[in-house]
């Protein structure tokens, strides 16, 4: 049996490092905010004819948008044949008239561009900020209620360990996004929500085992109980991560290879990282953390006695 409690300082160190790097990157790099949060306009044009990025740039230049960011979208049909090749153009906020002009210019240059082949999204900066604030407030309320529930069903120290592991997971996911400059859009909020549920769920399965194995145990046996409980939950944790990852891979292949949609890929990447970190933290961080809290408690009591 692996002793998770004896080696806990190593995993704490690793986690502290991960969190530190993530926070540092968040402080220095910040997020690469998409239009949902930063405001702006994007056009996605799926052409039905051959085109080059130079041609697209030419049209944009004529419209006075030479600074726009371009991204090629390379889709494939289910047979693997290239299909629906297009381009995503990101500009600062354009109003309705300006957008209309841009699209008209592209229609003139690429006459086969149908009405259904276009996506135009324009967001003022106010709206996105509001949504983030709303979601953050809601998540904070959810955390408080979850702490209460875990404290009620288990004990407060379990709540604390679970929530710390959860914060760890979310900070690392956010940190990876910040480090890799992946775009953060409203789908990212949905991804964080999923990681939120996954992380807590994973931790509780293990602490539930600890609670069960803890009956009639003396303080010096706690380390053994924690190790045993983690070992008993190990296969379950790995299998569930694996089935989740199988589906994530299917989604990733679908979105990346066949559609080339960057928004959805960011969603999938966030959850892949979340599942990996969440599995790690519930095994190596949450329960060992609880054990450490317990040790402090016993030591305090020992001194008091």
């Amino acid at each position, binding site marked *: 049996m692996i002793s998770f409690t004896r080696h806990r300082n190593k995993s704490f160190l690793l986690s502290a490092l991960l969190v530190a790097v993530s926070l540092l990157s968040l402080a220095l790099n910040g997020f690469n905010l998409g239009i949902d949060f930063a405001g702006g306009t994007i056009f996605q044009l799926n052409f039905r004819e051959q085109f080059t990025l130079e041609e697209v740039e030419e049209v944009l230049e004529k419209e006075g948008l030479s600074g726009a960011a371009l991204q090629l979208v390379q889709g494939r049909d289910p047979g693997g044949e290239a299909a629906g090749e297009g381009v995503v153009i990101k500009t600062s906020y354009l109003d309705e008239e300006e957008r*209309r002009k841009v699209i008209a210019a592209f229609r003139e240059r690429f006459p086969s561009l149908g009405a259904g082949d276009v996506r*135009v999204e324009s967001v003022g900066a106010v709206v996105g900020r509001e949504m983030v604030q709303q979601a953050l407030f809601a998540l904070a309320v*959810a955390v408080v209620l979850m702490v209460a529930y875990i404290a009620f069903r288990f004990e407060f120290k379990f709540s604390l360990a679970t929530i710390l592991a959860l914060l760890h997971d979310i900070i690392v996911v956010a940190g990876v996004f910040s480090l890799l400059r992946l775009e953060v859009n409203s789908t990212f909020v949905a991804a964080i929500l999923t990681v939120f549920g996954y992380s807590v769920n994973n931790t509780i399965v293990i602490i539930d085992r600890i609670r*069960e194995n803890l009956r009639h145990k003396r303080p010096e046996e706690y380390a053994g109980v924690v190790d045993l409980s983690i070992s008993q939950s190990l296969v*379950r944790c790995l*299998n569930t991560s694996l089935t989740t990852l199988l589906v994530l891979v299917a989604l990733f*292949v*679908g979105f990346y290879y066949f*559609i080339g949609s960057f928004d959805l890929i960011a*969603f999938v990447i966030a959850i892949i990282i979340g599942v990996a970190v969440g599995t790690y933290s519930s095994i190596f961080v949450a329960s060992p953390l609880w054990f450490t809290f317990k040790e402090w408690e016993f030591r305090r009591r020992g001194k008091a006695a």
Partner: protein
Amino acid sequence: MGRQVHPWKTLLLIVICLALLGASVFIVWQADKGIKRGLDIAGGLYVLLEAVPTGDQEVDQGAIERAAAIIRMRVDELGIAEPVIVPQGKDRIRIELPQVEDEEQAREIIGRTAQLRFVGPDGKEIVTGAHLKKAVMDRDPYTGEPFVGIEFDQEGAELFAKATGQYLGRPIYIYLDEEVISAPTVQSVITDGNAMITGEFTAEEAGELALLLRSGALPVELRELESRLVGPTLGERTEEISVWAAGAGLLAVILFMILYYRLAGLIAGIAQIFYMTLVLGILILLPTTLTLPGMAGLILSIGMAVDANVIIFERIKDELRSGRTLRSAIENGFQRAFRTILDSNVTTIIATVVLFFLTSGPVRGFAVTLFIGIASSMFTAITLTRFLLRLTFDAGLIRSGRFVGVKTA
């Protein structure tokens, strides 16, 4: 062991599984048209407008509701299927127009958010569209001549009465933004706020003028905050690929479960198919809208929902390894797993409920989907997996721990 074996239950098991699969195929087929798609999948135009106060009109709940009603009326007159036009908060209007492909066309439908003003011949403003209650095309009961009847609210009527007294015999100009849309001559002093615009128009022209007057009567000026236009072919492709990914993911998960948990894994696979069916069924019945992140979350849940089954099977394995008989290992496994499954899911359910009440838009929709997924997966694992496993046991198909992948015993 006093174990009773009922071979006929094998037949029952097969029949039940086939019935479940049949129901699944039926529901999946229904889901294609039964589940309402968000604009990001179905295509269409989403616009969020914000009212800005103008000179004499403050933005309040009443003004926003009237503005939304006016836009709704215009949209209805132009016949768009299932439009959503609702006031949001105290100063916003959300508009969703499915199937709209062209922003230009849609903006014409939403119409001019311009200001309607009645101006005297000396260029002085008499009254604005904010005080206009009604504008309809009607016909003179004697001559059959079409005219446009307009009605002001009380304050508007007073202003209009004063103006008609002052400008008797002279024209009043009706401006929509900078454009004069009509310039009727005042023929009498109008004190009750009910006026008739007559002239040489056809019924069609009179109707158009009435519509313009109504359209222009937006009580506030609206500014765009957010606009999303998705071409239907783009969303269609995403949905198609997502369905493929869901199928591939489901297949991979079921294969893994069978390889790892053998017969029990097969049962979990059938339960998993039923799980998807249940979720789709609920989505058909509930008035929810499936958005792209919601769909991705739903597909993801295929991998996560199998968790309850994994917990149960690992428990059964533990029980078998500690030397229990098959029957009691199965029963105990379920009983002990139940509490774990409940506690580990209740926390996520708390989060989804909080998000449902405290957020709006896509996050809220995602929370609903997540909630349906968790509740269904708990239900499926606790009831269906258990029922099928018991039936398999009673049918005599489980003879050793190998059914769940335990080598000894």
